[in-house]
């Protein structure tokens, strides 16, 4: 053979070696067509979309699932790869929170329970068939009948058809259906509303319509009832120029630092503040409704100075609060969270409701007609009574479904031991958790993305739950299980469809399945004020006592809700927005406390209260009051907490704790190098330092390069950004960003393409700056790359060509924003998590630099679509994952060449500036600074 052929062969061999080294074993790979093509126009290679419901927390937002072929041209490999909000959904308006975005990590979790299991005599589990398990339950029920014991069904919050089915099941098998268990039961609020308005409900708060918002301890952006909904409503309200928002709290919350004015007050003193406000509005005759003289009389009367001394809020602040409250046309007061969860929590709730009524918020802003469905939720009192029942050994079969009371209840409940007292305990769960481990029979539940269902998070709204993928394991939906236990032939799906067709008709059902939800008109509810109850309550209100020394506050966590979302691996990878700690636990203490105990970040302390002690590293947190130490409740075994017997609400405080420095310094992944920005040009420049952005400032050496049709740009409104990290989560899932784990985080090797940087501004207030690749026009990273892996494309994107990168890391060194991420190892998602990989973007191997490219795969798709209709991409057609899921629409993406586009308009605003402007990198990302600092006077 002549030389050329020879070389060709060599080339081929080397080629094959390359290929096999890439791990694509072509010889074995199959392409699998449909047997029968799906009737509607579905084509292999195009993503499918499906509307369903997010079940990560009780809020039940509407959720759109994107389904993709994992293996090109293999129809067997259709998997959900991305979750988004449903456009225009009444709850979440097309957005999701970080937990919702990470939902796939539950679906594909390696810790899913894959088989039914039964405890055999030796006490440990063995795999069983469904038949065995169900018969075992049958026997259990029969035995209970014989022994004359009663059975109970104990579940997490359940709404919609499933609730009905459970009722039917319980009636049929004479099982007592216990009040449902939620850690965040809002018992006090419900009790208060029952007292004041005769409605044991939680209203919907129309924040968007308010012009003044006062939140008392309510963490409306983190866990309070429906965070996403609150977020976008807040964003709407913010549009109003003279909207102002006071947040009062004893601890430090993400919500708090977002308020235009945050006042931290002494724990338990909220009622004093509220009475003060009540008095002022009553005096100023601001009242819209008259509570009646008795109540006015019986309100305790605190002079300003006393209020100030009791609450710990300065008189000036109190005055300014009172005045702006008084001047407000549509004020709204929301109490909740840590403020309604202590021995005077009920007082706080009642006074709030009273205030709401007096200021006629109940006419519009506090809406009982769309009340959240929390009626079926029980309280800690109910759990106590359950415990008593168990103690009497009268419990036959105990069903525990979709929750983990063992790890969520305080240790004193000894629940893990208690549930053993039932003859038979049946645990239904998708994840292995402390509760099901104690059960006798474990029934693996399908994830909501694998099953049918519906839910009614609030009045007048029905969400559909429909499967996006067949059950991956031998699991079943709760509905199907119950039907089988009822020896009912039909499936839960049929059950649902019968019901839907009955209620909504055939067309209605189809429509609902398409949109994913259905909202029905609800009759307007006019609340009636219960003067008697209130006056008597107010008369007997006790004065707050502050005999708690240093108090440990168990605050809810945005990352894990009440702890249930700890199962989502991603939630540990993304840092807590306030402390920027990713993995592991910590307690937050105030700078003064730190000074007193000579503590620095990462020092370990021992907390001790009666029959409770724990060791954790500390994080010093400005703005936290000195007699409060704060820990997120999901990070620790829940300590003994008093239960208020008027309402059943558990206290979230541990009084009289003592700290002690152990002298150990622990490795804690605090991702932020420093929160002090001191005018480095990342925060909005205030007048004396820095400078507003205009192009004259940077004389250009070289002619500006041409952008033909597009120049992609982004605008980020720091005023709207609430630091909720939803964007980060969305980015992780959309872009196949690897999870690297604690060890790498300690080495400072986190991989997130977008991060929420908390900084203290000139007045020491928190500011969140979302930082991702700025797509600089004069990008420092580009000229230094020896192999053109990083270059500027004609559309103004700073492209990173992954398989051209040789990994010099020079670009990362030279990036002033340090937003480039290097693959230090081959980080692959472990089976089966890798099913969620987005096929539209590569999975980067070791030694490759990666970074944000404004979701270039979405840009490509949109351009592709536009080209079919041969037109240019229109404004709003492309939405990067971060912008898409931002509940407050802080992020806007678009074409800077198009002067009509929203992003262009925003870039022109006088609030617009570039991060590190003085470097002259000419970023494509414009930040919009906060309108004047009306934080501190």
């Amino acid at each position, binding site marked *: 053979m002549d030389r050329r052929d020879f070389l060709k062969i*060599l080339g081929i061999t080397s080629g094959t070696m390359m290929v096999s080294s890439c791990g694509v074993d072509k010889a074995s790979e199959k*392409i699998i067509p449909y*047997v029968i093509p799906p009737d509607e126009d579905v084509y292999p290679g195009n993503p499918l979309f499906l509307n369903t419901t997010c079940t990560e927390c009780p809020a039940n937002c509407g959720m759109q699932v994107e389904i993709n072929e994992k293996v090109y041209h293999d129809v067997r490999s259709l998997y959900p790869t991305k979750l988004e909000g449903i456009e225009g959904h009444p709850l979440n308006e097309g957005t999701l929170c970080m937990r919702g975005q990470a939902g796939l990590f539950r679906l594909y979790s390696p810790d899913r329970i894959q088989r039914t299991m039964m405890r055999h005599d030796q006490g440990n589990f063995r795999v069983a068939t469904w038949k065995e398990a169900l018969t075992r339950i049958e026997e259990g029920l029969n035995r209970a009948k014989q022994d004359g014991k009663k059975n109970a069904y104990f579940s997490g919050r359940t709404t919609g058809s499933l609730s009905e089915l459970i009722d039917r099941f319980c009636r049929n098998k004479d099982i007592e259906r216990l009040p449902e268990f939620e850690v965040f039961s809002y018992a006090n609020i419900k009790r208060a509303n029952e007292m004041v308005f005769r409605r044991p409900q939680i209203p919907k708060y129309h924040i968007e319509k308010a012009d003044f918002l006062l939140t008392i301890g309510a963490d409306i952006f983190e866990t309070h009832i429906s965070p996403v909904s609150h977020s976008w409503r807040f964003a709407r309200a913010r549009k109003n120029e003279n909207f102002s928002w006071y947040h009062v709290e004893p601890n430090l919350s993400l919500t708090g630092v977002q308020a235009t004015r945050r006042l931290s007050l002494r724990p338990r003193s909220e009622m004093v503040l509220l009475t003060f406000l009540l008095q002022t509005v009553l005096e100023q005759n601001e009242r819209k409704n008259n509570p009646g003289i008795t109540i006015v009389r019986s309100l305790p009367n605190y002079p300003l100075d006393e209020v100030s001394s009791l609450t710990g809020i300065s008189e000036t602040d109190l005055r300014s609060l009172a005045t702006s409250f008084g001047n407000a046309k549509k004020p709204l007061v929301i109490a909740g969270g840590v403020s309604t969860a202590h021995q005077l929590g009920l007082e706080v709730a009642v006074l709030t409701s009273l205030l709401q009524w007096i200021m006629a918020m109940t006419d519009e802003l506090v809406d009982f007609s769309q009340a959240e469905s929390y009626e079926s939720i029980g309280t800690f009192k109910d759990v106590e009574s359950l415990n008593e029942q168990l103690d009497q050994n009268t419990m036959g079969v105990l069903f525990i479904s979709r929750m983990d009371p063992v790890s969520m209840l305080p240790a004193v409940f000894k629940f893990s031991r208690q549930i053993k007292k039932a003859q038979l305990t049946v645990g239904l769960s998708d994840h292995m958790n402390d509760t099901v481990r104690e059960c006798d029979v474990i029934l693996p539940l399908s994830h909501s993305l694998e099953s049918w269902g519906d839910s009614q998070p609030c009045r007048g709204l029905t969400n559909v739950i429909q499967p996006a993928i067949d059950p991956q394991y031998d699991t079943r939906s709760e509905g199907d299980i119950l039907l089988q236990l009822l020896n009912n032939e039909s499936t839960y799906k049929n059950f649902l469809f019968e019901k839907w067709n009955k209620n909504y008709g055939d067309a209605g059902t189809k429509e609902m399945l398409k949109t994913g939800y259905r909202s029905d008109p609800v009759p307007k509810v006019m609340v009636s004020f219960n003067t008697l109850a209130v006056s008597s309550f107010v008369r007997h209100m006790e004065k707050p006592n502050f005999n708690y020394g240093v108090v440990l506050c168990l605050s809810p966590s945005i990352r894990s809700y009440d702890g249930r979302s700890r199962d989502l691996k991603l939630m540990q990878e993304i840092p807590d927005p306030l402390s920027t700690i990713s993995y592991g636990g910590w307690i937050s203490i105030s700078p003064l406390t730190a000074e007193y105990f000579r503590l620095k970040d990462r020092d370990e302390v021992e907390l001790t209260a009666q029959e409770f002690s724990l060791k954790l590293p500390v994080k010093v947190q400005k703005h936290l009051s000195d007699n409060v130490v704060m820990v997120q409740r999901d990070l620790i075994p829940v300590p003994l907490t008093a239960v208020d017997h008027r309402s059943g609400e558990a206290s979230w405080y541990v009084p009289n704790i003592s700290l002690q420095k152990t002298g150990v310094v622990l490795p804690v992944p605090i991702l932020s190098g420093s929160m002090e920005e001191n005018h480095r040009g990342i925060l909005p420049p205030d007048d004396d330092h820095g400078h507003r952005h205009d192009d004259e400032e940077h004389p250009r050496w070289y002619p500006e390069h041409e952008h033909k049709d597009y120049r992609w740009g982004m605008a980020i409104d720091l005023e709207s950004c609430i630091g909720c990290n939803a964007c980060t989560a969305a980015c992780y899932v959309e872009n196949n960003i690897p999870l690297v784990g604690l060890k790498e985080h300690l080495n400072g090797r986190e991989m997130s393409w977008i991060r929420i940087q908390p900084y203290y501004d000139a007045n020491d207030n928190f500011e969140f700056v979302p930082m991702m690749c700025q797509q600089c026009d004069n990008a420092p990273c580009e000229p230094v790359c020896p192999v053109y892996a990083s270059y500027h494309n004609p559309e103004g994107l700073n492209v990173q060509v992954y398989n051209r990168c040789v990994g010099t890391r020079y670009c990362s060194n030279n990036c002033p924003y340090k937003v480039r991420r290097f693959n230090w190892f081959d980080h692959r998602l472990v089976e089966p998590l890798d099913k969620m990989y987005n096929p539209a973007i590569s999975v980067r191997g070791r030694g490759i630099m990666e970074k944000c490219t404004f979701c270039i795969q979405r840009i*490509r798709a949109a351009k592709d679509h536009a080209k079919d209709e041969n037109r240019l991409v229109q404004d709003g057609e492309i939405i990067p994952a971060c912008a898409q899921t931002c509940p407050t629409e802080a992020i806007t993406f678009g074409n800077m060449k198009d002067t009509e586009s929203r992003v262009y308009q925003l870039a022109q605003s006088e609030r617009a500036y570039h991060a590190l402007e003085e470097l002259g990198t000419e970023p494509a990302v414009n930040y919009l600074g906060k309108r004047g600092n009306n934080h501190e006077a």
Partner: protein
Amino acid sequence: MKKGIAPAIIILYIFSFMVFVSLIGYFWQQNRKTPKQPINFSHQLHVSRVGLACTHCHYSVEKSPAAGIPPVQTCMNCHQAVATDRPEIKKLTQYWEEKIPIPWKRVYVLPVRNYVYFSHKRHIKGGLQCVNCHGNVEVMPVIKQVPELEMGWCVSCHRVKNAPVDCATCHK
């Protein structure tokens, strides 16, 4: 004489080894290009003899990045009646009756697919013919990969047709 032998052997050995490796590589490659398919389907027969259009079977080629492999149903439309007695068609009918898809072996694969985006739709809409990349399928009893699908191959065509040569067009 004695001296000469050792080097000669060594050289001979090295040379034969290289040839050996190359041959293995060559045939492996060949095999990859024409793997044994579950049903030996002849494009030649269906295109030149029966005269089917490519899009008749590869139905999504204008609608999605993937060309679309025909559902078994599409085959059965004709083969309910046509040539039902042939052994290969019997196999087909079996698949159809058991309602399991035919596990075709993949022939065309981009070298480092993980990093590259390719859309059939765009190329067809851009006025390219299937032949341009897939060769004269109508004369192939057994389909096989014609071009190496290397970057240079794509780029040169893109340049000629002045399609975009911006890296981001194809690299993902």
